[in-house]
């Protein structure tokens, strides 16, 4: 048995809201095996995004330990955590989050600016990533010149360009029509099967969940 890609032990997360403490996650144990494609479902406000943020090192737990891709991230300093994200993770956001003033290929290049890669090589790798998502002919387009589905595929290219082991997606098809959503899901499936990326994806869409190898439900801060 190989070590799990994601391993949360007794993780709690609460937020301070005007003096009141909002307990979102309580003593959660959570494991994701390497190479799996997991969907996380559950009602709004159940803590899915919170859990994803913790796994991705965007936020810190109130208690508990988090190990991702072999690194204890809950104890990492701010700078080390940023570096770890750059090397280990690819993000896919519901709202795509492309930088509007940068072209598709420039957006895809962004993560490579954090690694010692020469500019010519950066461009080459970014174009390769765009080819993987089928948008090589859109590399010089700005986000506003693309459809929602195309924007999300550019975002996926950006997420995979530095060859991370783990992809984290928060409702990646939430803003898309059925056909575009299917394109994106097919793409994620390919990345999982052929490029062996571990994927954890939050979704409300049962069709999306069907693509995943494992489906989990989060309700009121605990896994069902």
């Amino acid at each position: 048995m190989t070590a799990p890609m994601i391993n949360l032990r007794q993780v709690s997360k609460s937020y301070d809201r005007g003096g009141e403490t909002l307990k979102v996650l309580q003593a959660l144990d959570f494991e994701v095996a390497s190479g799996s494609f997991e969907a996380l479902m559950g009602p709004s406000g159940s803590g899915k995004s919170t859990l994803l943020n913790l796994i991705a090192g965007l936020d810190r737990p109130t208690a508990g330990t988090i190990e991702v891709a072999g690194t204890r991230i809950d104890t990492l300093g701010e700078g080390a955590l940023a570096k770890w994200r750059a090397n280990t993770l690819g993000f896919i956001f519901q709202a795509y989050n492309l930088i509007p003033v940068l072209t598709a290929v420039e957006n895809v290049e962004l993560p490579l600016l954090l690694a010692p890669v020469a500019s010519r090589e950066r461009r080459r790798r970014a174009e390769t990533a765009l080819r993987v998502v089928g948008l090589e002919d859109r590399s010089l387009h700005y986000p506003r010149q693309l459809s929602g589905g195309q924007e999300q595929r550019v975002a996926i290219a950006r997420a995979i360009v530095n060859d991370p082991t783990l992809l984290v997606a928060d409702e990646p098809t939430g803003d898309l029509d059925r056909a575009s959503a299917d394109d994106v899901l097919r793409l994620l499936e390919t990345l999982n099967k052929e490029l062996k990326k571990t994927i954890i994806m939050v979704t409300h869409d049962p069709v999306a969940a069907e693509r995943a190898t494992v489906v989990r439900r989060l309700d009121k801060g605990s896994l069902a």
Partner: protein
Amino acid sequence: MIPVRYNVRSLAVRKTTTIATAAGIGLVVFVLASSLMLAAGVRKTLGLSGRRDVALVMRKGSDAELGSSIEDPQVGLLGSLSGVRRGPRGALVSGEVIVVAAMEKLGASGVSNVQLRGMTEQSHELRPQFKLVSGRLPRAGADEVLVGQRLRGRFRGLDLDGSFDLRKNRPVKVVGFFSDGGSSYESEVWVDLDVLRTSYRREGFVSSVRVQLESEGKFDGFQALVERDKRLGLQAMREATYFEKQSEGTSLFITVMGSVVSVFFALGAMIGAMITMYAAVASRQREIGTLRALGFSRSAVLGSFLLESVLLATAGGVMGAAASVAMGTVHFSMINYASWSEVVFRFEPTAAILGQSVGFAAVMGLVGGLLPAVRAARIAPAVAMRG
């Protein structure tokens, strides 16, 4: 590092705000550069007026030629001292009278003082840069004047063949214009010494005496001779020193005024830059969160927003500096407080002044952008996840 084109294009997208903010900074730089250029122009104009091998003799205690008075016989005495150069017509010594006349300005209402200088035959020899640019030299003893070219067209009557009243009912005719290598003499009207003295009832006196020395090195000896005789009650200084002192006061005044005004404007423009950058940070929170989520560090975000602010300010600075260069073609007349008369100066653009001014803009951008950049750096990466 976050690429610079991210900042450049973000500035370009917010066109109106960017231009307005940059223009504010440009205005400050324009004011600063212009006043530094004017101060440089004053130093240059007055610096060109004085020679090191000419001694200027005035009544002891006088700060300026205007307030000095020397009796005629003393002029001859000064010419007999050792160290004075002699020409075909004897010692190169020129006792000149300075008066100030209120003249009607053209193109602006009101009057302003113009310096009139009563000249001798030797006067031109003491000013080797002198050149007649149009018309002719006045005839000795005639009611004719020669006008410095910077005054041309600035006052009523100061045109070729024009005339003005030297004193009430004492008209004189302009017969020529002269240049003097850009010196402050170009802002004077030159009149025959005796014509000026009779119309101002100053017979028997001159204001100052210029003495051409055999060489620069003869000055100290000459000065000692003049000042040793207490009965004379005279003082001597190098002509160059005299004008340097005048320019120091005036250029310092302009520099200080310009700097004070610029600093106040700069505070305003810096607050403008700060507000603009705060607004930029607020509207780009999700972008910043995304950059952080992708792995860019806090300091990368800080640097990026500082850079954006500096770029914005520098663009404004370059605009302001370019506008100030256009001032180089403008002639500016102002009172020289040492002579209480108008001297026409030029704005003197130098690479150093332009560099300093654009540098000042960059510093404004840095200071104004600091707090917004710190706020940007504090944006949590989790902000990227919020819808």
